[in-house]
């Protein structure tokens, strides 16, 4: 499974006890799961409803109800499915509500867009983003550093060149080579894991 390449979330996979600690009410284990899943879930919700604040509100509600039901979970995939399904359902509710509002107030509020209900497409996109960010970690150190600086921290090529004492042309070349490598790296095994989980979520 991919991690997001920013925080060190490998703990989740390195420590098999995380889930049992979580279900027994360990706050630190909950925080690890939270850190692992927060951004992808917010991204997914944001893609569905288009509002940052609402997305974060929906995701935090899902985490709160996960905590309430913590004793029911013995496997990480079950936790992840639960979170995505809870978020998806809340997004549906919100979009339905918004539809009603828009209908009643179409004079007043024209959002100009039909509600985006491409749940499976957005789920795929969220997973794809996770994979790409996770793959960053498999690149050679300097390539990874260049990509993280330029994508995650949005540093300019000139800034990176200065940080690494390289010419801008060199940084550009390394960046495109790193991207090329990144695109080649993804292997079938990881994809299969992702797909199985997606199927589990979408069938519910």
């Amino acid at each position, binding site marked *: 499974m991919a991690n997001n390449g920013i925080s060190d979330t490998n703990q989740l996979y390195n420590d098999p006890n995380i889930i049992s600690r979580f279900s027994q009410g360990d706050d630190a284990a909950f*925080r690890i799961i*939270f850190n692992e899943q927060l951004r992808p879930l917010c991204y997914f919700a944001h893609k569905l409803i288009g509002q940052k604040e609402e997305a974060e509100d929906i995701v935090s509600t899902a985490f*709160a109800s996960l905590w309430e039901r913590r004793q029911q979970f013995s496997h990480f995939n079950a936790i992840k499915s639960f979170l995505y399904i809870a978020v998806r359902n809340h997004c549906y509710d919100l979009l339905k509500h918004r539809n009603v509002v828009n209908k009643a107030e179409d004079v007043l509020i024209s959002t100009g867009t039909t509600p985006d209900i*491409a749940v499976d*497409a957005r789920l795929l*996109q969220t997973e794809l983003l996770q994979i790409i960010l996770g793959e960053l970690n498999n690149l050679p150190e300097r390539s990874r550093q260049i990509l993280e600086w330029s*994508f995650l921290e949005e540093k300019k090529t000139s800034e990176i060149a200065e940080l690494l004492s390289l010419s801008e042309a060199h940084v550009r070349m390394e960046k495109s080579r790193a991207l090329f490598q990144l*695109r080649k790296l993804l292997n079938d095994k990881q994809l299969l894991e992702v797909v199985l989980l997606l*199927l589990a979520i979408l069938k519910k």
Partner: protein
Amino acid sequence: MQPTSEISPLLVRILYKCWSGAVLNSDEQQALNEWLAATPQNKVVYDEIVSGQWPVSDLQYYNSISYNDNWDRVQQKIAGKERPVKRLRFWWAAAAVILMLLGGVWFWKQQTQLKPEKAVQLADIAPGTQGAILTLGDGSTVVLDSLRNGEVANQQGVKAVLLNGKLLYENNGSANTIVYNSMTTPRGRQFHLVLPDGSQVWLNAQSSIRYPTAFTGKDRRVDISGEVYFEVKKDEQKPFFVNVPGRAEIAVLGTDFNIKAYTEEPYLNTTLVNGAVKVVAKGQSTILRPGYTAQIGEQGNIKVVSADTEQVLAWKNGAFYFDGATLQEVMRELSRWYDIEVVYEPGVPDTRFGGKISRDVNLAGLLRGLQATGVHYRIEQGRKLVVYK
């Protein structure tokens, strides 16, 4: 769940290949075509992924999602769900406050009898009352504190009538010129008004509303300041807009909401009780759901948080209702209702207050309810309240 299309196990791989610019084989191409044809939204997402801009285009948003803020939010929600227990404790606390309050009044009365010199120090201040100043279209003003039921003004066929403490408008249908009236509450007064369209408005202390005596245009527009609670009468033909000049505009249909727009408060808060409103500030906007507050900061940024509407509307129902309010927040409320100036001596600790107290008690009695370690109060001449260590 209604999947918009059957998801192929190949799709992640296919999309990854598309993203990376790899060539699809014929099976993959066919699966992709089917998926794209299934729903127009799939095409939207596909186009985004292969645009060459993605995922870079989304990373700024992605990285702006705060771990700590959201963790706090989750903890708050978990705490909120354990409400039954908390509520009970809270009501015990509230009961204790009221008991302390009654005890305080009793104690104070005993003291005034026994030690009259102490009573001089405790110069008291009466609570606010119902009342307001009505400014008519011609600029003349009517003080609505002590008037009896009956006609207050007649402006071009529209009568303003005072009935049991609230002002309402009676239109005989002949209104054709637009006349604007303003209702203003000073500190220490609140007032209930029925607008010409039947919408109900409550003004908290130090607040105002400006409105036409007849809504003849294609929409209904009012300007406000301070804190105002609205129950807007539904009229789909004429949307209702509340303008907080220079700061925000709230668009509504039939709906109940509170706007707290005191300039001395850090946020302009719009809290929705029923219906739907759209809050617009400096180019940003959000559609609010019932039970939520839109907080507009000084820069015009909007933040939506969940709200305890009972607490937000306590003022309208004759109570102060604090739940973790800071000393300064409490004092700002009191200064508006008791019309006092609050002075802080150095060294007063940061304290938070919880509890529900009637707004109908004298200041000294209320202060006895607001007990906290290291915080003392002294009422001085000239409606001044000194808070000291």
